[in-house]
């Protein structure tokens, strides 16, 4: 397991064009994917480099980074390693939800520590019977005196293995409610997942909460608002950073495909001398530019604070994830066996990209949502959704 020089992260944060830092970090990332873990101390290193929850306002410990600056950062990280970018995504999701809907006490207790990387957060919503349809979660909070007691099993929690604190979606009095749960406490049982298709270094875990006792102050927002507002805010933020990460991943795949095809010669002909090869690169170029433009549009509406920010982010995430999947697939094709070899970066991106088409809103579900937007835009009534805002899946 190779450890990155902490200065490479700082250089990446400061200078997007620092090729040496990028190349070194990418080589580490292939290694992390193989051993299926991130090096110890990396989270702290990300915090030291100012890369965690950097968009939080200064009063919550952040640097007040603009949406487009945060996005650019995530594109750079996404172009190195999806698991690394996931740390920034998940920490950012929980920080955004707390910054938006936490109490002063919750913010003061957690946000500065999340920014510094002293504590790592994970987001635990998915269950066996509730993936796309998060309103079906069965994890339950019961009142016991002034405390709450949590029972339930969450699946597929990114960074769940190494997180210090979980933001958990459950039900309280039958309504969606969110709570903060400390890892390592009595009744918290973490079961690491290994060998999944992608995001292999992301310390994914299934997490069981077996009668975990919490003080009432660890509830985030009133019951009834856990899904529509708290989880909604977290997922919206997650979609935004994933979108940029996917645009970065697609950009790296295009770069690696261009370099490889320009260098490889067979029978006296360079691969890039074939028109069909250049056409594939050209498709990638247009797709990457389009994904970046949509990410930028989402960043602008977020900066303006318009309601369109939410749907612009859905569109950006959908398109960027699809672009990452398409361009990484073409890159694997253009690299041939080299793209399929162990330790191949494009192979890793290909596997990771497929997963980004599922998380934070599966592709088909985003398409249905965008169909609603088309109907809205053209002022056509659509059938009532037949569900309440508090019950609908948040994408």
């Amino acid at each position, binding site marked *: 397991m190779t450890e990155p020089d902490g200065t490479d992260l700082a250089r990446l944060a400061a200078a997007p064009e620092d090729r040496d830092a990028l190349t070194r970090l990418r080589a580490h990332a292939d290694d992390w994917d193989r051993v299926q873990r991130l090096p110890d101390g990396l989270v702290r290193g990300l915090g030291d480099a100012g890369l965690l929850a950097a968009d939080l306002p200064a009063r919550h410990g952040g640097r007040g980074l603009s949406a487009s600056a945060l996005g650019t950062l995530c594109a750079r990280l996404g172009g190195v390693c999806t698991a690394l970018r996931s740390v920034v995504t998940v920490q950012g999701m929980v920080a955004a939800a707390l910054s938006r809907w936490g109490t002063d006490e919750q913010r003061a207790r957690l946000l500065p520590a999340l920014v510094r990387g002293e504590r790592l957060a994970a987001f635990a919503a998915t269950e066996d019977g509730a993936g796309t349809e998060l309103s079906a979660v069965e994890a339950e909070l019961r009142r016991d005196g002034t405390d709450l007691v949590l029972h339930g099993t969450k699946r597929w929690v990114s960074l769940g293995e190494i997180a210090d604190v979980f933001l958990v979606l459950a039900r309280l009095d039958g309504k969606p409610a969110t709570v903060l749960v400390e890892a390592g406490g009595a009744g918290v049982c973490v079961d690491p997942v290994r060998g999944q298709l992608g995001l292999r270094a992301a310390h994914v875990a299934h997490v069981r909460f077996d009668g975990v006792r919490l003080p009432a102050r660890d509830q985030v927002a009133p019951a009834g608002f856990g899904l529509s*507002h708290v989880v*909604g805010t977290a997922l919206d933020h997650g979609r935004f950073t994933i979108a940029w990460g996917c645009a970065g991943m697609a950009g790296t795949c295009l770069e690696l495909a261009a370099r490889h095809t320009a260098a490889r010669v067979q029978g006296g002909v360079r691969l890039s001398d074939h028109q069909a090869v250049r056409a594939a690169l050209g498709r990638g170029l247009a797709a990457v530019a389009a994904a970046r433009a949509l990410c930028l549009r989402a960043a602008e509406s977020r900066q303006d*604070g318009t309601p369109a920010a939410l*749907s612009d982010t859905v569109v950006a995430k959908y398109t960027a994830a699809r672009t990452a999947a398409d361009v990484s697939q073409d890159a694997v094709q253009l690299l041939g066996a080299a793209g399929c070899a162990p330790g191949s970066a494009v192979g890793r991106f290909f596997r990771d990209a497929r997963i980004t088409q599922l998380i934070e809103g599966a592709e088909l579900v985003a398409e249905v949502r965008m169909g609603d937007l088309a109907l809205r835009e053209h002022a056509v009534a659509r059938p009532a959704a037949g*569900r309440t805002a*508090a019950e*609908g899946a948040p994408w």
Partner: protein
Amino acid sequence: MKDQPSGDPPPDDVLAELRAFFGQVFPGIDLGADDDYFRQGNADSLFALELVTFVEQHFRVGIDVEDLDLDNFRTLGRTTAFVHRKRAGAAVERRPGGPGND
């Protein structure tokens, strides 16, 4: 919906502005001031946060965790009253039963 250029006074006719926003989000559905759009099933999953963002940006009021009570938002009339209360700087009332009751 045109957003208020910064510097302009916020719109006074809150109900009409809200109705225009709803007209855009739920085209073809004619909402009365007292219709409960959450209960009617018109509101979809992004809507709750779109409404928060619209109210904050358009009327320049902050919505905080203390304001999360469906009774503040479930009808055009209630949302209008909420905006007026916020603007007047008054603490927004919470029912004894706690927020979010349906």
